[in-house]
């Protein structure tokens, strides 16, 4: 449908709107200069929005270009260097150079610092303009700028409208160009754009310079309109004008600056006729917009008509080819027999903490090689060393025979090592197609081209379609990435990784957060990819890993304990021990002697029924049913990634449950805020402790202290070690001491249920004993829910246990029963038993 599309071209809409306004103003006989002002402020706003809406930078002081270019134009004409039109050219060049200089220096800073620095520059320019009376006219500015090329106001107005429409047309082309497309990717996910190989700093500098040019032109036009120049536009009170207008109109819409300029200037005109104090009326309008319609005027109109898309670029994507070329990986033609990646005695230590010990690994092409291991085994450290995010302490990494041990991340990307991220890293505001296309562009074209339409680069388009087809998203190519379900986003993410022409794919927990059906789909894709690439996979879904992998390496405490075919690895005694938690050094403290009471007759304190929860689209927990009785100690076990922490988050109120009910002492907890839940008697000892690093031990405890909880003496009785560290700042405590403070903190309030997330994590065996003794002393006095992946350490001190498998409860019963049944433990927590393994491998071979 070409006619409606052409009609929606922003330059055309701008032209029509301005012409209609001009005619209306002529008809009512009002001065045309108001519409001229609207036109040039539209250009000002559009220039600023190139940075805000398209690049994600917020310049508080873009006015520095507006004001300086105004003065440049005035100097040029008054100094008789040329006529008025030539002064426009001069001002644009001046402003562009200024932007390049300022940008080169301040774009190294990010976020708020960048914004404030632009404001500082604008104020400096203001002070110079205001005080240097001899040159700039100071307070009074400069007047009498001749406008010789235009016989009357109307002619000048026509020129301005034409110039503004021309600039909008130019901007529209720029944002669809290869360069403009990259800007938007940088806005959405700077880290991912960088990992694809784009130079983010240069991209931003380019955008900043272009903004300087467009804003400079609008400033120069203002000088010609007023036939004079004044300093007030540089001052902080007016520095925000362009931002205000753009936000009022809608930053996520290309025509936002137009609507914002019209609304702002018309309102200013009408209201200042009513009262000099027109901000009295205008400010509340702005505040209401900020609160109620963050997407501005255009957003408001869109909401009323049912749509809610950003309109920064055209919605369309290039046409799908009749026959999509099948995806050919860059890994074709690699000799299969030789290892592609090799590590030799790879080690990493942080001070005395060793996370990787002499790891020797060979990774072959066309093999699906998985790395598994219990929590803290060092898998992520190993991956980070392979991808270049972390330098190894010793050892070598060879890729295709080349030593890459010290190579930078983007250099490894260029060699052919691609990486997907554990936390989904895509470009949420781009379409599915664009996500992949911009990744392909990084390999082929880079960001070359400010003017041509990126969607006409057919080689890049074809490859993007091939990749989308390979991951199964070809039918969803036109959808916005943000509206995809979690599983599809994961497929997209793998697609973006594929676009990097990698021979080796490092996939970091690609199944994390996926529901069962999605896991099957993604696992199938990974298996297909392994037919052509070398794939290294970290995963916690052991069953699936065993089913699809060609080869498995097991890490435990930084060392490789097993490496071979899935069947061999599953039966390996070291592997089984690693997962079930036998201590490696052979010295294990005997479990404290406790008396277990059946608490089933006691009243239920906490009841969760049918609870489901997740994070932004992903389902982590489904159908959780839990009961904890008064004074009972319960363990929540499961491998990593099954949803144990998510369960605690839901119980403490940080994460709302999607369905199901949770009640505490009969009261439903739904909708209560975390502090209200804490006041009811549930205290959380979170993962990572989360002490306040700038407060001392005593202060951390005092902060939490409430009437009815423990006092300091009782805490020091429970944890004698803390007495000596009472005045130390929390950031200087050891891991064990922090854990003690975290538990003590939960006891400072009158709690009836304490939720503990991995309380023994990262603690030395002697410290574990201290903490365990303290928990044993608490038994019976307060109910506890202890999350652990290390069953052996926690089962001796609890009464009952639940086991989570992939977000659902797979076992519920007495701790004693689980403790004395190693087969049951192995089935739920360790690697799979022989008979089930055979069946699984059989299924996978189909």
């Amino acid at each position, binding site marked *: 449908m070409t006619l409606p599309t052409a009609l929606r071209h922003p330059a055309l809409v701008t032209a029509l709107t301005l012409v209609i306004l001009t005619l209306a103003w002529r008809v009512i006989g009002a001065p045309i200069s108001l519409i001229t002002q609207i036109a040039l402020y539209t250009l000002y706003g559009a220039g600023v929005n190139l940075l805000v809406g398209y690049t994600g930078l917020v310049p508080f002081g873009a006015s520095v270009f507006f004001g300086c270019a105004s003065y440049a134009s005035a100097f040029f004409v008054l100094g008789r260097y040329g006529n008025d039109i030539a002064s426009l050219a001069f001002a644009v060049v001046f402003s562009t150079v200024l932007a390049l200089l300022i940008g080169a220096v301040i774009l190294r*800073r990010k976020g708020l*610092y960048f914004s404030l620095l632009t404001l500082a*520059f604008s104020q400096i320019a203001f002070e110079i303009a205001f005080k240097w009376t001899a040159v700039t006219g100071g307070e009074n500015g400069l007047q009498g700028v001749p406008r010789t090329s235009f016989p009357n106001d109307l002619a000048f107005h026509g020129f301005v409208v034409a110039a503004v429409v021309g600039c909008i047309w130019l901007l529209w082309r720029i944002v669809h160009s290869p360069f403009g497309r990259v800007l938007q990717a940088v806005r959405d996910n700077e880290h991912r754009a960088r990992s694809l190989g784009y130079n983010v700093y240069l991209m931003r500098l380019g955008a900043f310079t272009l903004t300087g040019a467009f804003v400079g032109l609008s400033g120069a036009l203002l000088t010609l309109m007023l036939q004079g120049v004044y300093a007030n536009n540089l001052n902080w009170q007016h520095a925000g004008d362009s931002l205000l207008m753009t936000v009022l109109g809608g930053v996520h819409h290309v025509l936002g600056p137009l609507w914002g300029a019209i609304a702002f200037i018309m309102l200013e005109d009408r209201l200042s006729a009513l009262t000099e104090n*027109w901000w009295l009326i205008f*400010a509340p309008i702005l505040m209401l917009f900020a609160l109620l319609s963050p997407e501005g005027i255009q957003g408001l109109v869109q909401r009323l008509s049912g749509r809610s898309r950003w309109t920064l670029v055209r919605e369309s994507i290039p046409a799908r080819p009749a026959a999509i070329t099948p995806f050919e990986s860059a890994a074709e033609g690699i000799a299969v027999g030789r290892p592609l990646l090799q590590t030799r005695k790879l080690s990493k230590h942080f001070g005395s903490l060793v996370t990787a010990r002499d790891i020797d690994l060979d990774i072959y092409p066309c093999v699906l090689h998985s790395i598994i291991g219990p929590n803290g085994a060092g898998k992520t450290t190993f991956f980070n060393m392979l991808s270049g995010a972390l330098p190894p302490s010793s050892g070598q990494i060879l890729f295709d025979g080349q030593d890459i041990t010290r190579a930078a991340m983007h250099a490894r990307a260029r060699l052919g090592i691609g990486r997907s991220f554990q936390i989904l890293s895509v470009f949420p505001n781009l379409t599915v197609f664009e996500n992949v296309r911009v990744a392909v562009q990084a390999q082929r074209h880079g960001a070359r081209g400010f003017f041509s339409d990126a969607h006409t680069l057919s080689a890049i388009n074809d490859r993007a379609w091939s990749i989308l087809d390979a991951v199964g998203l070809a039918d969803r190519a036109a959808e916005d990435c943000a509206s995809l379900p979690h599983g599809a986003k994961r497929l997209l993410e793998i697609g973006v990784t594929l676009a990097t022409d990698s021979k080796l794919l490092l996939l970091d927990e690609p199944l994390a957060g996926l529901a069962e059906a999605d896991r099957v789909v993604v696992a199938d894709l990974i298996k297909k990819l392994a037919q052509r690439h070398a794939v290294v996979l970290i995963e916690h879904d052991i069953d699936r890993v065993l089913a699809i992998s060609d080869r498995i390496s097991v890490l435990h405490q930084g060392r490789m304990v097993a490496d071979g075919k899935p069947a061999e690895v599953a039966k390996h005694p070291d592997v089984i021990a690693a997962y079930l938690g036998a201590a490696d050094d052979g010295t294990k403290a005997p479990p404290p002697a406790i008396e277990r009471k059946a608490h089933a007759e006691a009243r239920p304190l906490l009841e969760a029924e049918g609870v489901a929860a997740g994070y932004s689209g992903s389902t982590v927990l489904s159908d959780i049913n839990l009961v904890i009785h008064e004074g009972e100690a319960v363990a929540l076990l499961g491998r990593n990634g099954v949803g144990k922490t998510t369960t605690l988050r839901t119980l403490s109120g940080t994460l709302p449950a999607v369905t199901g009910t949770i009640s505490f002492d009969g009261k439903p907890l739904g909708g209560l805020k975390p*502090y209200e839940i804490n006041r009811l008697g549930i205290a959380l000892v979170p993962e990572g402790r989360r002490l306040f690093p700038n407060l001392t031990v005593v202060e951390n405890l005092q*902060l939490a202290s409430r009437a009815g909880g423990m006092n300091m003496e009782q805490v020091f009785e429970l944890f004698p070690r803390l007495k000596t560290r009472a005045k130390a700042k929390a950031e200087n405590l050891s891991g064990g001491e922090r854990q003690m403070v975290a538990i003590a903190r939960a006891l400072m309030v009158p709690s009836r249920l304490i939720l503990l997330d991995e309380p023994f994590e990262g603690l030395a065996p002697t410290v574990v004993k201290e903490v365990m003794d303290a928990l044993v002393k608490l038994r019976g006095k307060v109910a506890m829910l202890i999350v652990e992946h290390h069953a052996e350490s926690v089962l001796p001190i609890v009464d009952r246990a639940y086991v989570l498998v992939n977000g659902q409860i797979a076992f519920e019963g007495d701790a004693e029963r689980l403790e004395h049944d190693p087969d049951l433990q192995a089935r739920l927590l360790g690697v799979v038993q022989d008979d089930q393994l055979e069946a699984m491998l059989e299924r996978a071979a189909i």
Partner: protein
Amino acid sequence: MLDMILSQAVNGLVLGFLYVLIAIGLSIIFGMLGIVNFAHGAFFAVGAYLAYSLNKNFGWTAALLAPIITGLIGVVVEMVLVRWIYGKEPLLGLILTFALALFIEAILRLLYGGAPVPFAAPKFLSGFVEYGPVLLTKYRMFVLIVTVVVLIAFWAFLAYTPYGRIIRAGSRDPEMVGLLGINLPIVFSGVFGVGCLLAGLGGMLAAPLWTLQPSMAAGAIMPAFVIVTIGGLGSYSGAIIAGLLVGITIAMTIQFQPEWSGAAMYILMALILLVRPRGLFGEKWERFE
């Protein structure tokens, strides 16, 4: 010559401490709420005008209530407006507080007119004091003493009181503070109120020194931004050192290169940020980057 430099340096200290007072308020709002409060200068002006009105009608002892009333106005503003933008896009906070700043200025213009209003220091504080080579007005001496006392008291408040602990903890991990059973919405209102109280106190003290007009807000908000940025977002000692640095810089440029006095602090800020990207003592907080 030396006398002049020393006297001017002391004037710079007075100015600096005043700026620090304003900047600290801005900094705790930044730290705990994550909001860039563009309206901070407007609360400064409110404090000044309230002091003027109270003084005119009830004498200067009543004027001492001005900061407290400003703080209460801040609490109301937080509950009605500011709390709706926590966690949302920073640009919205910017627009809201910017519009709020201009709105408050417009109200002041409505109530008091746009022209400057005379406000003299109380009689018993007029005149000069002399300490060796340094010559200072009695009022400036008073301002210096009061600001130092308030800053020490506020530091003690942060270091030793429960509420101060909450503010310090909350600037690092507000979610965890909530998980400990502390009513966050009330804490946030309180912090905003305290920030506005400090701004109002600055206004009350500055009223006899600076011209009392609605646009005086600009004279407070811009130095506050500069100080908080130079000192480092979230650093109490950084704000003090930065404030004194800015105050003395401005006083010295007024004495020796008056045309540059307006631009001086921005140039100082640009130079420091280019060398130390997070300010003198700033810490790496993702929230601000």
